[in-house]
């Protein structure tokens, strides 16, 4: 009897809070309320975006979000998509798979977006595949793990734009072969990104006549990798491969310098931004890593199909957010949103939400020879990444500059 009453109290609060929630989200993002279907002929196309602008992957998520903000301004300034203004509803996942899942549901059910771009990390992406598939809404992920789009049969609604780790690893190993390196030591982050790289680095090494002589890891946020590197120093490794994002990679570079290790350091595309150079300082010198051509746009030949978009994107981004802020992560978001915009441009007028989502997915799969910042994309029913070869550049850092090692 007493606990009946408590039910009452409990439910009152829950409902009250929920109601508040309703209010806030309608006041929250400007005009971000549910669209009244075919109210005005040219109502906005709504796209959802989920990026990790705080938490472990924030240094990837922030440029991604900033890129999207910039593109929305540009597209709407240019009259939108066939006269439809573009509206992006953005939420911060705080690099949490669980939170990401709730937010994506919110985008689908409350904001009625037509497509979703992001999230930033592989873990978050894998966490929402089921959600978007059951809800029948296209997702263009900005995360590395190839498992996000394979097997395609189970990923009907899911696409992604960043290079697959497998391709990047292959690119590094091929380069090492040329350099005559046969023994490497790995030092990788235990995070989703680092572990993904580590797995492929270990499994694919033999294919290039390379043996992994030491396999060290560290925890995201660790403040020193000296012990791991000391262990590596005791092996016959001819090079160190570090798979992590900028901060941890910078510490590895610095600790190698401290330990006066002379063997070269190869890093992942996770350090493709200025943060790494500013963080590692002089220790960044001589670090080699593969990345999209974005970083070395100046020396990309005019003949290159990407040249134009690379130049424009870099110019616009740095004009808006300051020189040296460019990063390939923002590029991934650029490619993701562009693919969606292309698709939106081709869907017929006056579809209801569900039909529009289906149409957008179909159109994304049709995208051919789209020159993005990360590479040239040709999607197909059998390939939801669709990145064409030759999109990567091997880059060395020399006196704080990115040099393309052709």
């Amino acid at each position, binding site marked *: 009897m007493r606990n009946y009453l408590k039910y009452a109290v409990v439910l009152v609060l829950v409902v009250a809070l929920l109601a508040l929630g309703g209010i806030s989200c309608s006041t929250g993002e400007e005009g971000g309320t549910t669209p009244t279907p075919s109210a005005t002929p040219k109502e906005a196309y709504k796209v959802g975006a989920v990026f990790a*602008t*705080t*938490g472990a992957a*924030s*240094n990837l*998520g*922030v440029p991604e979000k900033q890129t999207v903000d910039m593109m929305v301004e540009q597209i709407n300034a240019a009259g939108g998509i066939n006269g439809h203004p573009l509206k992006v509803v953005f939420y911060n996942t705080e690099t949490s798979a669980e939170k990401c899942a709730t937010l994506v549901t919110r985008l689908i059910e409350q904001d009625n977006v037509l497509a979703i771009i992001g999230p930033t990390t592989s873990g978050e992406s894998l966490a929402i595949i089921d959600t978007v598939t059951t809800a029948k809404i296209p997702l263009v992920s900005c995360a590395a793990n190839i498992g996000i789009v394979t097997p395609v049969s189970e990923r009907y609604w899911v696409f992604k734009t960043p290079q697959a780790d497998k391709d990047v690893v292959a690119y590094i190993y091929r380069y090492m072969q040329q350099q005559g390196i046969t023994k490497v030591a790995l030092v990788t982050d*235990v995070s989703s990104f680092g572990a993904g790289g580590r797995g492929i680095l270990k499994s694919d090494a033999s294919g290039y006549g390379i043996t992994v002589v030491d*396999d*060290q*890891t*560290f*925890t995201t*946020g*660790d*403040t*020193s990798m*000296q*012990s*791991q590197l*000391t*262990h590596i*120093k*005791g092996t016959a490794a001819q090079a160190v491969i570090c798979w992590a994002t*900028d*901060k941890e990679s*910078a*510490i590895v570079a*610095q600790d190698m*310098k*401290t*330990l*006066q290790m002379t063997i070269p350091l190869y890093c992942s595309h996770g350090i493709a931004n200025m*943060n790494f150079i*500013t*963080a590692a*300082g*002089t*220790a960044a010198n001589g670090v080699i890593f593969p990345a999209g051509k974005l970083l070395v746009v100046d020396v990309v030949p005019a003949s290159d199909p990407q040249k134009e978009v690379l130049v424009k994107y870099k110019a616009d981004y740095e004009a808006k957010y300051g020189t040296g802020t460019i990063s390939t992560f923002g590029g991934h978001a650029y490619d993701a949103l562009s693919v969606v915009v292309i698709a939106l441009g081709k869907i017929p007028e006056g579809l209801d939400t569900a039909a529009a989502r289906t149409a957008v997915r179909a159109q994304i799969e049709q995208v051919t020879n789209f020159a993005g910042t990360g590479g040239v994309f040709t999607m197909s029913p059998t390939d939801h990444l669709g990145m064409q070869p030759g999109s990567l550049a091997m880059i060395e850092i020399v006196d704080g500059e990115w040099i393309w090692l052709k």
Partner: protein
Amino acid sequence: MSADQFVQYLVSGVTQGSIYALVGLGFTIIYAVTRVINFAQGEFVMLGGMLSFTLARSAGLPLAPAFILSVLITAAVGASMYVLAIRTAKRASVVSLIIITIGAAIFIRGIAGVLWGVEPDRPPFFTGHESISFLGAYIHPQALWIIGTTIVVTIILHLFLSYTMVGKALKACAINPVASSLVGVNPRTMALIAFALAAAIGGIGGVVMAPLIMTSYSVGVMLGLKGFVAAAIGGFKSPVAAVFGGLLLGIVESLAVAANWGPFTSSYKDAIALVVLLLILLIRSGKLAAEEKAS
């Protein structure tokens, strides 16, 4: 493992240990006086680092003033945290107070994220960045600064607690708040001092370690956790115990990497360190129980 390597492991371990110790000190001071585990301690360290970065790099202040200013501001933050959040919570139980410190940590981190952005920053090194050779091992000059600071801070703290009026009052309050209030020591004033002191030490730590380990709005989370473990190993007893805990933690982690046996690669180093913590706690609890019976 060669002798040189072994020394190197120890050197790296001691460096890390000193970092953990500097964070652990703050935990210990506040816990001893207020019985509150201050989850915002890591954020104090973060503030020290970020402030010194802003003052040194952006405002172009020379090292000394940047150092002092950062520490003072951090101490002020700690004090105001006590006055605004902890002291105003009158009827709050210790658990509620702990949750308040968690709230404070999230708040400070959130503000920092907005003010400084999310990318890592590095204040200038105190003295160069060419590593120094030492018994066949190498050590970064900044690491020497960190170890030195830890030693100095610990000694000063020890002297402060043993020989000054305020210090003795703090100690008394730590041992028995009720009794000490009877002899005219105001626990609230002591708590205020404890928070300011802990924040200041956190700030000092942040300033000296930032050039080596870099700083960003979120470093407080991991450092706070390690510092807590350090303090826990030390039993939240005395500053010296906390430093011992920090060093032990650092060295265990380093040697765990060195061992590298079987499946236990370096990815288990944190786990191994925590197992050590658990063992120490269990062993101590035996003693604790005995003491309790005796008292």
